[in-house]
């Protein structure tokens, strides 16, 4: 996988996609991911969600950073903005502010999100920007060919940690919970249907929804986040998990070695659009209060 691979544009393949009924959500470019890459699941998952939610594709903007995962906007038939490494959230915030009628889906990898873009997450979360942020976490830098990422496991050998990674990985779910994200969930690329449901639920949420998708990089990670390992480790959240209980969500998120899939936490609170509108009413003196 490299940055300069020409997008594939095959008429026959397109016909095939049209035939399966999702055609309006798929663009004429076919995904350029490595065969077997977990990211294919997102194209399917998102198109499923949009269809389920009945959102017109002209009203959707998929925004991404830079990375394998961030190639995503090219592969869906929505408006798309492939931005800069790490800057997906501020651009997405601007888009939502620029036109709040748009449905904004932000997409990126774990390096894009938690390394270079880490500084933006707390602010998008606390402001409760009304968008969905899908982070495809493969614990590695895919696009730049296999360096360690902030979620790489200790002991992981990569091209930038040839003598094993010594840095303790981040816990993205605990981060987002403590940042005040109003919807936090986890899915797994290997569980397609559950992933599609989770994307749907995340997008249905009014406010900032964060979905971490555990996703194998089949090319640069043969030992850690493999389908085999993740199939073994992944579990469902306990039946009685109360998604309005922040502390319970924290406790589940803390068990990083046994990742639980599902909705950890959700909360209904004013979104940035609403807060701004209220501010503007106050400023204009038209606030009914």
């Amino acid at each position, binding site marked *: 996988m490299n*940055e*300069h691979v*020409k*997008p594939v544009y095959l008429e026959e393949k397109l016909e095939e996609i049209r035939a399966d009924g999702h055609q309006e959500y798929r*663009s*004429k*470019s076919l995904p350029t991911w490595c065969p077997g890459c977990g990211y294919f699941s997102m194209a399917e998952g998102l198109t499923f969600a949009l269809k389920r939610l009945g959102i017109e*594709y*002209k*009203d959707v*903007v*998929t*925004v991404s950073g*830079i990375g394998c995962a961030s190639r995503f*906007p*090219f592969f869906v*038939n*929505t*408006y*798309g*903005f*492939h*931005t*800069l490494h790490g*800057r997906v*959230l*501020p*651009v*997405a*915030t*601007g*888009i*939502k*502010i*620029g*036109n709040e*009628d*748009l449905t904004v889906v932000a997409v990126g990898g774990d390096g894009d999100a938690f390394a270079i873009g880490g*500084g*933006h997450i*707390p*602010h998008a979360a606390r402001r409760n920007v009304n968008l969905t942020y899908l982070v495809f976490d493969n614990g590695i830098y895919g696009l730049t060919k296999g360096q360690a990422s902030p979620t790489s496991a200790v002991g992981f050998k990569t091209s930038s940690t040839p003598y094993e990674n010594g840095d303790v990985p981040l816990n993205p779910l605990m981060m987002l919970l403590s940042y005040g994200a109003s919807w936090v969930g986890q899915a797994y690329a290997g569980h397609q249907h559950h992933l599609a449901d989770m994307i749907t639920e995340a997008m249905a949420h009014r406010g900032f929804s964060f979905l971490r998708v555990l996703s194998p990089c089949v090319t640069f990670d043969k030992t850690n986040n493999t389908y085999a390992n993740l199939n073994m480790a992944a579990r469902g959240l306990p039946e009685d998990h109360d998604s309005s209980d922040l502390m319970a969500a924290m406790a589940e998120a803390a068990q990083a070695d046994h990742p639980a899939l599902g909705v950890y936490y959700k909360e209904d609170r004013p979104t*940035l659009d609403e807060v*701004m509108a209220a*501010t*503007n009413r*106050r*400023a*204009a*003196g038209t606030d009914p209060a």
Partner: protein
Amino acid sequence: MMNKAGTDIQIAICGSAGDGTIASGDIMKRAAALMGFNVIAFDVYPPEIRGFGKCISRIRISSQQAYSLKQESDILVSLNDMHAIPHVGEVRDFGAVIYDDHLVSRVAEGGHISAHINPAQIPYGFSIRQISEQATNSARSRNIVILGYVAGLFNLPGEHFRKVIKSKFATKAQAVVDDNTKAFDAGLRAGRAVFKLDDVEVREPAEDANGAEVVMMTGNGAVVRGFMEAGIQSYFGYPITPATSIMERLAVEMPPVGGKFLQTEDEISAIAAAIGAGYTGSRAATATSGPGLALMAEMLGLGVMAEVPVVVVVSQRGGPSTGLPTKTEQSDLNLAVFGGSGDAQRIVLAPTNVEGCYRCAAMAFDIAETYQVPVILLIDLYLSNRYETVVPSSENAFAPKPRVPLKLVKGKPYERFALTENHISPRALPGEEGLMHTITGLEHNELGRPNDAIHMTMTIKRHEKLKNAINYEGLNVSKRFGDTGRVNVGILGWGSTFGEILEAMYEAQAEGISCSAMKVVMLSPLPVDALRAFFNDCDQILVPELNYEGQFANLVSGALGRPVTRLNRAIGTPMVVDEILAEVRRLYIQGPDTQDGARATGAGS
């Protein structure tokens, strides 16, 4: 040149933070504007907010348009001798020095300002504090008492001051207005009782022919006014001196009219969000200073590559790094014009005065939208903070034009980056039916699909489309002043320095030197034809600017392949008119032969 018969005086009010110096200057300049004078004013604040730092408010009041502050003040008012003493020297001979002659505590010899007034200056001591205390039971209105005194001494109409005082304190309790009016009147009586010995004269302002609304504003205030008139819809900012007041003012003005205002977590997010909003068709802007612009460089490149309109105001301060946050400099030209990776030309506008700030800001959105590119408004601390009287446009000239919907050609995919004759491609906005596309910072083809092979073609497109901007209607991207035709010395300038350049040019003309000055407002793309014509007319070209490296000189002489003489000053304060004048004289006497692109005396030494 100033009309000698008219009024042209400069008042400097100097005090300590907390003395109300800046507020006093503010009332002074607003009252002068009300009287119908042209006003240019510049306040100097201490770098630290608390404590007893020095504040100076300098106000030039003239019947004819002036272009910069004067080197010498006609009147100095001291609210704090310790701070004012070093400035006594800036008062011209037979000018006035006004101070408190009833100190509350004893000072050693030389501790009082009267010890520093030279025999040709006129001392006016009066009991500022006592009068303030008698009028309002508080020493806090000293800053208003002195205004009354100045008005009394120079026979200025009191009603204008009272009006300004009333409007300035309108949000406070009536007692505040009353107290300040009392303080003013008490000062006025004291000032009227004094026998005037200086030769500073305030005559009737020139009759304003068109009677247009005249407003007093700072460069930053003018940017805000321009933005508001252009219907700015979203603003994203991160505080940084000297751009902060743009953000603070917009935070007040945008919400009531439904504008979206957000203070972001850093400058990267500010520009990113502005680009995001600009992408949706919203009129979006941000403002920062050099350090913030450095952080924005990568995003500006994205704006250029993805052809997204956005407006970025950059008010320069001393650099590099955190540098001199409260001092002025013109050293971010390179960053504004070239900053970022790749061949990333953007439009850079550098207005030269407050009026220019207003007009450029008001037009910037349309320019950005027309050429689908980031527009940088490059100003500096001196311009940001100095006050001038501006005549705003009366009609609603800058509001967005209604959007013409794009036509979908049946059977043809929509090409966001179509190659066209004028290199500008039809831009669809998200939400519009059937025109879905993805934009990217990767090199891309007409459809917006990543593509390397088309790089040269697209690079040409992105550069060529901007050339049209040189002829953007209503914008003087360059302008020549002074003698026409062949001249001995041409002074080329940009940004706030141009005021000093004009003053120097007019003085040189008065000395019989044949010279012209040309301002360049569009730094990118450069109006090379106009520049070449100017170079052809001038035996020698002098480029004064407030930086060490001669960034503008490099830009111009690189673009034209012609040598220039440089006058570089990195002193934190505005260019000195006399230094420009001295250079002009030197070049004039020396003649064109020895001029070899050599650095002028000051440069780099």
